[in-house]
């Protein structure tokens, strides 16, 4: 592997004594698709929140492009090239699709509060530039037709892609996608699948949390399996799939889900 772009080392956090994420390390290189899988409650989203700075880790470090960003507040991590999507959709529902993506462009916008207040011509020039960029991104994720639709009126699969477009608007070096295909039908999943591959190809390191194993196995370069907050296995998809510990963990999960169903 070439020099890692994202280097997470020994990261961990505990909530009320429970170690939600414990001693997790991984590295992701430019252009790579790195997937994190694991049973429900394994700590995948918590790991994302640690990497993106929503939670402050109690131990471990996060490095991006060689720089230690462990203590950098979340909104500044975007500046160093990190963008993400969310498991539970975090859409700006009162705004249109294109406006959602325009918000994602916030970092590249050159304007000030005073200029905005006074409505200087530079603000409107900036708006035009931002809008063009946002429209191009919507085109890229296949939502160009819905640019002016209120985000609240978009179907679920479209919202998932809208989030990806918004994250891409920050021109990230690392893109973290939290279950981008959850709740999507086969056609939508296929579209997202192609989109992720294209994004990685364009030189972005993609970190993916996903439950759709077919998708994971197809597009991942490497996979990390988490169970109860700890790394269980890491490697190429095929090796991971055949790892007996991984199979046991997943069967355990399925087993417990069956049990839940029986009791619930």
């Amino acid at each position, binding site marked *: 592997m070439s020099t890692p772009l994202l280097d997470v080392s020994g990261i961990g956090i505990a909530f009320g004594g429970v170690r939600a994420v414990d001693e997790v390390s991984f590295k992701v290189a430019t252009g790579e698709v790195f997937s994190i899988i694991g049973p429900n409650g394994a700590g995948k989203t918590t790991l994302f929140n640690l990497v993106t700075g929503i939670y402050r880790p109690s131990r471990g470090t996060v490095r991006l492009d060689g720089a230690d960003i462990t203590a950098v507040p979340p909104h500044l991590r975007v*500046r160093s090239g990190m963008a993400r999507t969310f498991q539970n959709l975090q*859409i700006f529902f009162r705004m249109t699709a294109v406006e959602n993506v325009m*918000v*994602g462009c*916030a970092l590249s*916008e050159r304007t000030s509060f005073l200029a905005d207040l*006074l409505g200087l011509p530079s603000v409107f020039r900036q708006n035009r530039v931002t809008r063009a960029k946002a429209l191009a991104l919507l085109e890229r994720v296949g939502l160009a037709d819905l640019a002016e639709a209120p985000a609240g009126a978009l179907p679920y699969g479209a919202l998932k892609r809208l989030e990806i477009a*918004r994250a891409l608007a920050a021109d990230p070096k690392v893109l973290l996608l939290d279950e981008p295909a959850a709740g999507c039908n086969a056609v939508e999943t296929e579209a997202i699948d192609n989109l992720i591959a294209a994004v990685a190809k364009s030189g972005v390191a993609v970190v993916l949390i996903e439950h759709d194993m077919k998708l994971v196995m197809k597009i991942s370069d490497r996979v990390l399996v988490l169970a109860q907050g700890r790394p269980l296995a890491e490697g190429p998809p095929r090796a991971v799939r055949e790892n007996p510990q991984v199979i046991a963990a997943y069967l355990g999960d399925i087993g417990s889900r069956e049990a839940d169903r029986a009791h619930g």
Partner: protein
Amino acid sequence: MKAILRSRLTPLLALALVMALVPMIAPTSFHLRVAALVWIFSLAALGLTILMGYAGQVSLGHAGFLGIGAYAVAIGPARLGLDPLLCLLLGAVLSGLVAWLVGRPILRLKGYYLAIATLGFGVIVALILHSETELTGGPDGMSVARVTLFGWRVTGALNWYWVSAGALLVGALLALNIAASPTGRALRALHDSEVAATGAGIDVSAKKLAAFVLAAVYAAVAGGLLAAMNGLITPEAASFSHSVELVAMVIIGGLGSVFGTVLGAAFLVVLPQALTAFQEYEQAVLGLLIMVFMIFLPQGIVPSLRALIEERLP
């Protein structure tokens, strides 16, 4: 037609048109004064529209900032011998500064917690204005010196009408500018999801603080104008019920709509004047109206109307 409805400056033109028409149909100077009051309260409420309507942050103590602006115009000339116009500016700066100091910690709070914190701030301001009798004249308030605008003594209902109308137009223009800018997008974004706004690289606390400070400046300027026009100010200006009325203006007109805010202000300013004959019933009617609006038109008048019109248009 839709394009006109959606254009950024349409509300401003409509407002200017109304402003030009009112003096032609207002029969007496009393009516002009009421209209001027509408413009002034609209200005105060517009700040809240930015804070509540765009950024989604509630303030139940906004009359406190109005009080700061009003008393700056009253105290400055009377106690320090400063020029009233200068004091209007100083009041705005002071109000913004106080908002910055208070807002930094309390804007971390959300929902009900933010409501009680801002409410507490407003109550404290009102109490100070009430109690520091030597400075503020206490519960009876104090009189305010006449304002001279570049050598022109502003007196009479019509002059005040135009001054307040001009101030509101400027305020409305700035609010519309913000709405159409990256800052406005950021504010609306954090209203819907702070996590996602942060994820887009927006410094959420800084943006909230900016909106809070701006809203405080709007309120202070309105307060200053109110004091100067009335020639008298009492701590009532900063009271909790005044804060409630400001919030009601914003919501009744339509959260986040500039024109709606003016409509809401007009409604709540004119209503008590219309009810003076039934003064006993004023409070009951006001309470009832607030309830009815909140229950049946929580979107406010203007957004509901606009939705209706856009629905009917091809």
